[in-house]
């Protein structure tokens, strides 16, 4: 037995991975369908092993601001929540983005609007990808489609967060959070020492020695010209992400005449749809964005030269479809198919939509 394979829920995988890769602090507030993240962490008592801090905050507003504090000190800090809680974090997220504080936020999305349902949905795409809070900013958004990726994206998320000094969001949903699958957990790594943090993150507020200027974590620039310059710097950073960090996966795209674009749990459903379609001789392919920001626009544009039409399948009223349309820029028709309010589409239901909208259309 070489690899250590475990069976667990997506939410548990997030917690296990966090302890293993040396996360310094988790701050959160309970909400279904992701409460297992904090419950797993508390049960594991990582403060006795790795020294990781786990704290239940009084609200999501407090949790995200605890991240602002811990992340500003150059520590690896994270939180998890579901849609209503993530809405409360939007103020904090825009401050973190503005002050360039790295952190990881996991959204195990449930159906909305309002209190909505505790069932899975993908209706927070706009909020995650288009900013969510005020001002011109972007989060890096990762979309895991398996329990394995829930674990893997914790490390990937922190690598990107520190590379760019930017908050990273894992945009998951109730399906991925709750379902159980086999997972290989990342190898154990110790937490950064204070010396390592000083070396890697010279901007961190660890107390000001005589040898350097004071470090200030702030998003405030009252002079318009300075604020414009800061905005240009942020935009240049987002541009670099678009050039260097796009991730996606393709199924049967090489000879595809029709294309589905779907992420997260929808992409799992659509993979099956592609298999059924292929059995019937329909040349259907699937592109699964792994990063939602930055979005795989270039590859979708390339595929638009080859296919007759594209269907964006999302558990929402049609959000990612706008980015697919922008990528394709009118080259081929782009349609949306989705279920709402916690309903998960079946593979045959999606195939019917492919037939009606793409092939018949």
């Amino acid at each position, binding site marked *: 037995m070489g690899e250590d394979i475990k069976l667990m829920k997506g939410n548990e995988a997030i917690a296990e991975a966090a302890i293993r890769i040396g996360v310094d602090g988790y701050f959160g507030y309970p909400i279904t369908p992701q409460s297992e993240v904090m419950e797993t962490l508390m049960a594991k008592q990582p403060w006795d092993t790795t020294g990781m801090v786990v704290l239940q905050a009084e609200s999501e507003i407090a949790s995200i601001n*605890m991240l602002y504090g811990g992340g500003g000190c150059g520590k690896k800090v994270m939180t998890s929540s579901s849609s209503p809680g993530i809405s409360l974090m939007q103020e904090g997220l825009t401050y973190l983005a503005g002050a360039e504080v790295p952190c990881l936020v996991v959204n195990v999305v449930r159906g909305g609007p309002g209190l909505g349902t505790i069932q899975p949905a993908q209706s927070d795409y706009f909020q995650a990808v288009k900013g969510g809070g005020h001002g011109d900013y972007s989060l890096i958004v990762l979309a895991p489609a398996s329990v394995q990726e829930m674990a893997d994206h914790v490390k990937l998320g922190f690598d990107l967060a520190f590379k760019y000094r930017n908050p990273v969001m894992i945009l998951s949903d109730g399906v991925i959070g709750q379902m159980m699958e086999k997972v290989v957990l990342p190898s154990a790594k110790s937490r950064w020492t204070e010396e390592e943090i000083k070396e890697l993150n010279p901007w961190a507020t660890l107390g000001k020695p005589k040898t350097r200027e004071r470090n200030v974590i702030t998003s405030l620039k009252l002079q318009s010209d300075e604020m414009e310059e800061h905005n240009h710097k942020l935009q240049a950073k987002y541009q670099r992400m678009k050039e260097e960090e796009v991730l996606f996966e393709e199924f049967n795209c090489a000879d595809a005449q029709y294309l589905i674009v779907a992420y997260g749990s929808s992409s799992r459903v659509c993979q099956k749809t592609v298999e059924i379609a292929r059995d019937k001789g329909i040349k259907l392919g699937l592109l699964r964005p792994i990063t939602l920001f930055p979005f795989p626009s270039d590859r979708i544009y390339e595929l638009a030269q080859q296919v007759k039409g594209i269907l964006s399948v999302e558990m929402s009223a049609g959000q990612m479809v706008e980015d697919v349309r922008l990528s394709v820029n009118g080259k081929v028709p782009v349609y949306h198919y989705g279920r709402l309010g916690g309903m998960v589409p079946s593979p045959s239901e999606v195939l019917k939509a492919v037939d009606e909208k793409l092939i018949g259309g």
Partner: protein
Amino acid sequence: MLEINDIIKPENLVYGKTPVLTDSVMHYCPGCSHGVVHKILAQVIEEMGIQEQTIGVAPVGCAVFAYNYIDIDWHEAAHGRAPAVATGIKRLLPEKMVFTYQGDGDLAAIGTAETIHACNRGENIVIIFINNGIYGMTGGQMAPTTIEGMPASTCPFGRTPERDGYPLKMSEILATLPGTCYVTRQAVHTAAHVRKTKKALVKAFENQKMRKGTSIVEVVSTCSSGWKMTPVNANKWMVDNMFPFYKLGDLKNE
């Protein structure tokens, strides 16, 4: 007669600016209490030898630029969120000295939940609470601490409890929480009061060193611009009207 250059020799110096205070010119209005509190806070940081381990959390309010004046590492928090930010810092850096510096709107209105829960967890931090009874930065609107009858731009004929609710005695509330070890209310309008407030700050940071829980130093303050008074009249108005309601002294000292 001594020449000026003979007088300013180092051996004749009896008082000087602490190096923890930067050379930046403060933006505070004449008569404002923030500048005095900044000065004694910087002195305390110097005298306790904690400059290299101290991390401050600045509020949204007139003290938003505190990081320009006190030469330590800082976080500039969103409005009211400083105690949550300080919690994140202190939990991950328990050996450092962490404090928040907040106005009454920041601490007792928009940040009430963060304040109460940080204190109730007994976060091992110092909270410096500038209570000037008004929203200074945004131009003199009513604060949660505005006393009955006191005018502000959003209650121009005076605070009326039937419409505006009652002034909030936040320190009294915080003193009831088991997580707080020291809650004191001070002022800085006379030299004697400045000395007492400085002593209170020393005690608060010493509590943090001893990991005793949350220490709160409230400073009843003036805002001559927001109150639309001269600095001298503002001090007098504070003594006559604020002190009877916000009584100075220790509310808790364990």
